[in-house]
């Protein structure tokens, strides 16, 4: 188990006394708590994105994007902001960092990265990874990821994370040196555990189910949103045709000409306004996507728990079997099938010395087994405790973030309505002057 679980961190997790100014900052600054030691020291930004070309691992030319991470010491009162330390990272390095975190802190819901490829796109939005709008949204998503990690009571103390922010060249080696890849559970192992756990923890089962349903509902919402965006785009853009026809028509009219012409301009304005509207809505979609990807992280934690539980059950079962064997050996009865017992029956009983040594071996094995069970039990309990702390923390964060996302969605709708009222009131005036 990673060494950053301590009672100190637990205190930090349950610290929810944020002041009202901090509360306001939260709303302004994408819902991130500033409660961690790391964020008290540093300000983190992903400031820019740049295209690079280089040779990849198979020695082929490729174009990729790198992102500039800026670290500066947290602002002191009245001091001038210092120049930032910067380094460049590409998306794959973020992925490596996240995989490391996943393996190292399996009881933590690791914040997700922004999507690798554009999904749930509506037609006008490019699905091209090099498209500037996509890159920009990804930049924001990466910054969000770093801030989420930096504000997490456990994750923010991780050394490798710190190196990621500060050590451009040496980081990759440092990560690989941790040997985290060996600690990763094989997919097969965890899948088989999923089906064989006898006493699943009800809370985790419920959580997994919730996570799956949330995933499904958000996916559906995003699909609908993409379709609705497409339609709305169509509605607004067709009004642009009014602009053109009004303009042409105004040329042949005497009295109506001016009114038509100016009304036409408003139609053009209306048609153009959809671009900004949908761009803002994209931000809302990104907020939903973050929680869509979070559900994968939640599922990960549940699966890890299943695995640990399964291993515990296996160890207990193994121990029980051995005890059974010992009992049988001691009493001479064979209640459960064992090869040794069978061969003894077939080829004759063993000598008392042999029996003695076998008993001793079993005794040893049982002791080891009891140790293992005790360890696994502790591991499981520790896991459950730590995981559940983080889950509570996550739930609070999710409720707060999503509520604010819904509010900002409403604000967006209001803004869109106001624009519509403006344009059509203007158009009406032009028509009245016709």
């Amino acid at each position, binding site marked *: 188990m990673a060494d950053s679980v301590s009672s100190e961190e637990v205190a930090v997790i349950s610290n929810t006394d944020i002041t*009202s100014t901090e*509360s*306001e900052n939260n*709303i*302004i600054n994408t819902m991130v708590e500033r409660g961690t030691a790391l964020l008290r020291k540093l300000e983190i930004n992903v400031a820019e994105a740049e295209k690079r070309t280089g040779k990849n691992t198979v020695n082929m030319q490729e174009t990729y994007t790198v992102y500039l991470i800026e670290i500066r010491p947290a602002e002191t009162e009245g001091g001038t902001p210092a120049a930032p330390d910067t380094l460049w990272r590409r998306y794959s390095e973020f992925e490596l960092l996240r995989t490391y975190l996943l393996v190292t802190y399996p009881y933590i819901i690791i914040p997700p990265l922004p999507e690798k490829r554009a999904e749930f796109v509506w037609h006008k939005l490019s699905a091209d990874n090099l498209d500037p709008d996509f890159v920009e949204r990804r930049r924001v998503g990466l910054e969000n990821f770093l801030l989420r990690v930096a504000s997490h009571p456990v994750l923010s103390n991780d050394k490798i994370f710190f190196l990621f922010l500060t050590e451009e060249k040496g980081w990759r080696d440092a990560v690989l040196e941790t040997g985290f890849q060996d600690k990763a559970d094989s997919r097969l192992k965890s899948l088989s555990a999923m089906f064989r756990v006898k006493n699943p923890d009800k809370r985790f089962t419920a959580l997994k189910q*919730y996570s799956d*349903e*949330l995933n499904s*509902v*958000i996916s*559906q*919402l995003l699909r*609908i949103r993409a*379709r*609705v965006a497409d*339609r*709305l785009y*169509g*509605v607004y853009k*067709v*009004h642009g*045709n*009014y602009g053109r*026809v009004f303009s*042409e*028509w105004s040329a*042949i009219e005497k*009295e*109506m000409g001016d*009114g038509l012409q100016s*009304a036409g301009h408003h139609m053009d304005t209306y048609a153009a306004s959809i671009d900004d509207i949908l761009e803002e809505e994209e931000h809302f979609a990104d907020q939903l996507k973050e929680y869509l990807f979070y559900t994968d992280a939640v599922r990960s934690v549940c699966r890890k728990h299943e695995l640990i539980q399964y291993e515990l059950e296996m160890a207990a079962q193994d121990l029980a079997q051995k005890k059974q064997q010992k009992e049988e050996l001691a009493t001479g009865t064979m209640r459960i099938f064992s090869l040794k017992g069978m061969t003894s029956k077939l080829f004759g009983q063993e000598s008392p010395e042999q029996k003695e040594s076998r008993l001793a071996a079993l005794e040893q094995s049982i002791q080891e087994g009891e140790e293992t069970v005790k360890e696994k039990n502790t591991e499981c309990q520790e896991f459950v405790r730590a995981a559940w702390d983080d889950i509570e923390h996550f739930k609070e964060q999710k*409720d707060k973030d*999503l*509520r604010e996302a*819904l*509010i900002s*969605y*409403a*604000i967006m*709708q*209001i803004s869109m*309505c*106001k624009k*519509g*009222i403006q344009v*059509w*009131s203007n*158009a*009406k005036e032009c*028509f*009245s002057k*016709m």
Partner: protein
Amino acid sequence: MSGHTVPADFSEHMLDLDEDEDLEVFTKNTSLPDGSPLPNSPSSMVNQYRLEDDDEGKEDANTKDIFVTVDHPESQVTAIETFILYRVVTRTTRSDFDSSEYEVRRRYQDFVWLRSKLEEKHPTLIVHPLPEKFVMKGMVERFNDDFIETRRRALHRFLNKISEHPILSYSQHFQVFLTAQDLAPHRKQGPGFLSRMGETVRAVANSVRGLRSRPEEFAVMQEYVDDFSNKMCCMDKVSQRIVKEQREYVDDLKQYSPTYARWGELEEELTEPLKGVASCVVQCSKEAEEHIQHLSEVLVPALHEYVLCAETLKAVMRRRDNIQAEFEAKNEALLTRKAEQEALQEEVDVLADRMEQANNSLKGDWVRWQHSMKTDLRSAFISAAEKNVEYYEKCLAVWESFLVSQRAEASGGQEDVA
């Protein structure tokens, strides 16, 4: 006066010859709405409708003495066919009507008859178009409720346009249409199918011969008509496309609310805002549907009507051209042929007179029509713009009340949103 052979029924023909009679009927009003002296000749009609005031429409309402409505479509089934009968109710104070109120039943074909009679008698007046016989796209059935309602509205507008027309509203055919319980005997009278055929043949012949030259003002008019027709077709298409896109938008929008509701059921703390959003979306969808309804009932039909008007205008221009062509042809015959000078001269005089009257009618009606077009389309556009504003205002209110409910929920301060 439409240049066909003098029909057997003289009385009607005499009415045709005497345009002044129509005018005299009109001159029962002692003065015009704008206070200028009343006209008593066709040419002075040209000045009559040079209206500058926007109050014209309101004053019309005050001086209107005939009110027509079309309603209560009812399906009629006979052995041979099924058709719709519309109720036409007339209320009038005009003395040339025997009664002040009439109620009759008319079918689409009766309207077609009326219109063709009006056009025959007044070939260069702009007679408002009827709704189309069929609607090709969308596989609309003839007896589909929306279709019937759209048609009813258009027929209502048609009769109102006729009743507001200073000349057409005093047409005998119009009166018969509004008052006769049984239209059938009237439909059999007068120049009918064959004479219309004749006119078409002559029109084709004339167009082949070609027009020597169009007077400047009619050349300008023709150009305008062609452009206007183009623009109206575009407007019609754009509007219909907008309705279609909006329908598709609303269909997809509606899918939000069950999804948000489903999500709400998953959550605990978030249930209330999620259900709030679901309900907002439902309300906005309703507003959007109302908006679409209004567009389909007001703007789209208005624009479509003027597409048909443009076709009417083209036909009027053609008929005017034909009248001119006939005169020119006869005139040429007069100049080239040495025999029958006297007879030809008489014919030429008749045709010249006819041409002058046709041109003057058109000139006068043209101004009236332009004004009417401007009023109609302006009002349709204003209505559409108003409805858009109303739609956005209602949606705004929906989302604002959601915000208010969320702020009430929240403990501690949240920032004020402009």
